[in-house]
């Protein structure tokens, strides 16, 4: 349905022709303004917050000032230096190890949740989401209290935790829920007819798994591997806390820009870190196109049948993984309450007595403001943007917007932060006044988490038929009003989902914020890093726990609100299979 041309109806013939024309043209102008204006505004926003910073980083790296480590000559020197190759080797080793550990575990967990009949599935699902609610430093801090030189479980380790294995275990915990989410959707739906055919042909369960389940979820496994690899190679929260002297590239970018003000060098490292993300993104797209559609039109949804041995085995695996996660996070919370580890184990709230200085309660308040603004403004902007792309006439502009909206997914947070430093810290940029403010941090956060939110919104909007717009037009209702009065309320579940996603991501993100904060706009996650750097590990654990509890609280609140609202306003909805 073309939303731009007003419906010309014979029913208007009885109206005063002049009035009819005025009404019609007003309606056309208002709708046109909303659609075209909105699309151009969205394009400007995307260019400003995504494309220009990336371009600025590329320019700084390749054509930049030699005194700050930029320029082609510096690029060649950097890439050929032994130090760089050593750093790159370290980063690759760590990321590959983590990917190879996490993806099989996440696969087993996802299989247990989707394809077996184990009990208490919501409980395991909930626990598996814990690492998402805290910054990546929290597993690192917990590891110090568990396996550090004064750790509770020190005896289990032969060497100390600082270094390669510390980083690997910390990042494995941090990336586990991300891999799990990808694999859950990969294993979500299956065609029962295939399994019936397999059993009637006498295939063993293992054979059925190999031929049906594995070949159907292969693309998901590859996507999960790429995602974990990219997350690890660009993360520096864990290496900073528990890496000791094991240096990785992400840390080097931070030291170059913040520690030594060598912006060109930082830009070059940022470009190197962008490569794995771009590569895996491209291959993922290519594979997605090749993947045959798993669920045809006549497929029957597969419901797993109980099997004692298999269910018990998977229950044990799931329970063990959840126990490990609970142990790590429980340790972090406990350590924030201990007065003076390890000599005075009495419980007290000393570490929570943050001062009013930038690293204390100010940081927490800033984080709340950032998360709130990102969630509310961001969800509105992203949802409106998705509407303008999905529900309007498809032109070159909408195609461009759709393409641009995929870019943030391929750019790691660290690279975002670097790009923003180089773009907004230029003296001749009129927007340079924004640098160091909370406003810029809000923009950066929304841009960074744009793609996933936009895809959720687009998926929800695509479920709505075009007939809603047709009804609105025949009633002479401006599109804007229709959007706010009809579309938004119908898509409320998706909207609340996006709000929750943006809020939690903004509370826990650190890779971009670490380059863009000033003493006035310091964030809680950044304060965690600074406190750990200064040796105040108890304070760092306390602030991380605060972030964890806030994210968990808001998530539960939004889930409750969503449940209540759904019951009241969405009762007409029928549940879709498999969700």
């Amino acid at each position, binding site marked *: 349905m073309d939303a731009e041309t007003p419906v010309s109806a014979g029913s208007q013939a009885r109206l005063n022709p002049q009035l009819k024309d005025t009404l019609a043209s007003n309606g056309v102008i208002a709708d046109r303004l909303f659609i075209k204006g909105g699309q151009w505004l969205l394009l400007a926003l995307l260019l400003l917050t995504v494309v220009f910073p990336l371009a600025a980083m590329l320019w700084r790296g390749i054509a930049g000032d030699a005194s*700050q480590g930029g320029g082609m000559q510096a690029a060649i020197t950097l890439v050929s230096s*032994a*130090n760089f190759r*050593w*750093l790159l*080797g370290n980063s690759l080793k760590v990321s590959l190890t983590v990917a190879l550990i996490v993806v099989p575990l996440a696969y087993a967990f996802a299989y247990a949740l989707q394809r077996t009949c184990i009990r208490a599935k919501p409980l395991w699902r909930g626990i598996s989401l814990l690492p998402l609610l805290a910054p990546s430093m929290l597993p690192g801090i917990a590891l*110090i209290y568990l396996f*550090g*030189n*004064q750790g509770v479980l020190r005896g289990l380790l032969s060497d*100390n935790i*600082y270094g390669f294995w510390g980083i690997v275990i910390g990042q494995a915990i941090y990336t586990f829920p991300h891999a799990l989410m990808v694999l859950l959707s990969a294993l979500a739906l299956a065609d029962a007819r295939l399994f019936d055919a397999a059993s009637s042909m006498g295939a063993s369960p293992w054979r059925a798994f190999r031929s049906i389940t594995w070949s159907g979820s292969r693309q998901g496994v590859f996507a999960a591997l790429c995602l974990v690899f990219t997350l690890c190679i660009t993360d520096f929260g864990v290496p900073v806390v528990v890496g*000791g*002297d094991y*240096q990785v590239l992400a840390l080097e970018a931070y030291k170059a820009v*913040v*520690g*030594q*003000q060598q912006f060109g060098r930082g830009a070059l490292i940022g470009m190197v870190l962008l490569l794995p993300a771009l590569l895996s993104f491209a291959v993922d797209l290519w594979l997605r196109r090749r993947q045959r559609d798993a669920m045809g039109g006549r497929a029957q949804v597969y419901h797993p049948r109980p099997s004692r041995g298999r269910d018990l085995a998977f229950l044990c695996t799931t329970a063990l993984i959840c126990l490990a996660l609970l142990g790590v996070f429980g340790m972090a919370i406990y350590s924030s309450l201990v007065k*003076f*580890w*390890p*000599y*005075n184990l009495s419980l007290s709230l000393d570490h929570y007595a943050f*001062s*009013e*200085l*930038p*690293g204390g309660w100010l940081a927490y308040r800033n984080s709340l403001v950032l998360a709130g*603004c990102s969630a*509310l*403004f961001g969800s509105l902007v992203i949802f409106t943007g998705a509407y303008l792309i999905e529900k309007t006439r498809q032109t070159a502009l909408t195609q461009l917007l759709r393409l641009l909206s995929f870019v943030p997914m391929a750019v790691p947070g660290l690279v975002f932060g670097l790009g923003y430093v180089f773009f907004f810290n230029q*003296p001749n940029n009129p927007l340079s006044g924004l640098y160091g403010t909370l406003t810029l941090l809000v923009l950066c956060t929304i841009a960074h988490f744009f793609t996933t939110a936009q895809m959720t919104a687009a998926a929800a909007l695509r479920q709505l038929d075009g007939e809603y717009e047709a009804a609105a037009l025949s009633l002479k209702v401006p599109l804007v009003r229709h959007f706010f009065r009809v579309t938004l309320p119908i898509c409320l579940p998706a909207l609340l989902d996006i709000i929750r996603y943006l809020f939690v991501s903004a509370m826990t993100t650190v890779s971009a914020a670490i380059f863009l904060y*000033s*003493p*006035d706009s310091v964030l809680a996650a950044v304060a965690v890093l600074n406190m750990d*750097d*200064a*040796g*105040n*590990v108890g304070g760092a654990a306390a602030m991380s726990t605060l972030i964890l509890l806030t994210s968990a609280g808001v998530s539960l609140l939004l889930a409750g609100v969503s449940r209540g609202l759904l019951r009241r306003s969405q009762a007409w909805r029928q549940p879709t299979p498999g969700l």
Partner: protein
Amino acid sequence: MFKRTALAAGLLAACAFHAQANTELTVYTALEVEQLKAYKEAFEKQNPDIEIKWVRDSTGIVTAKLLAEKERPQADAVWGLAGSSLAILKQQGMLEAYAPANLDKIGSNYRDAANPPSWVGMDVWAATICFNTVEAEKQGLPKPTKWEDLTNPVYKDKIVMPNPASSGTGYLDVSAWLQTFGEAQGWAYMDKLHANIGQYTHSGSKPCKLAAAGEFPIGISFEYPAVQLKRKGAPLDIVLPKEGLGWEIEATGIIKGTAHLAAAKKLADFSASREAMDLYKANFAVLAQPGIAERFQELPADYEQRLIKNDFNWASENRDKILAEWRKRYDGKSEPLPQ
């Protein structure tokens, strides 16, 4: 809808309120975080029309920031940065020479030699070894009494030290070893010490905090965290090695070209004044104004005599060269050093 208007109204109100506030002085500092509040309050009590906005980070990072902002300085003044760093800034022509009110009482070796001086000292901080007695007993470690003792293989991976590129404390250690042992011997000493270092930290006080927590039994740090932690009940022994202690002056300077010159001058006056010395007295045993400091119970009476003869000009002129050499040798080499 309401939330947005409320937020917008709140932001506008905050901006309006801010616009009518007093002179805001942007002060870069490497002071310890715990000291910032007391110093700011004392200064603002005497100068109610000036508000300090701290920008705090470790010495190396603040120095790098100031140098990077050379063309467009963001700072108005520096209150509490290593003397060797301020000497570099002076050499780059970034400091405004100014003689504060109390200058005649400041010791002659605790300020810039020129007249008027580009920077004036506040207090002295010196190298100290934090030695965890409980851990040492558990692991059977002897107590070191000299810097040389730390190269004993029994301490392998048990020592923590600050990274001189980011920490002023780390740099004063390296500079002191090179001055005390001579260039060749100094680097040889650090080669042997590197084998025993478990970690290089970014902050100067972290090694002592790690030692207090027993994470590593020996931390090379400075006396302020050592004394504070010992007073809180940590099982620490404060060891002052026999060869002498490296040290650094914490000092104040005004950035050239600041828009708030009058306010910055008031800050310089306050920093060198008797009231400020009384503030520093609680944290440091050696002050820039002689005769005021009080003896710390935890430190020996002859503490000031144990400081080595320190050539600050040499330390600041050779800073880049020394740090480059240090990074080449110890900052994450892939192959182990040839033995």
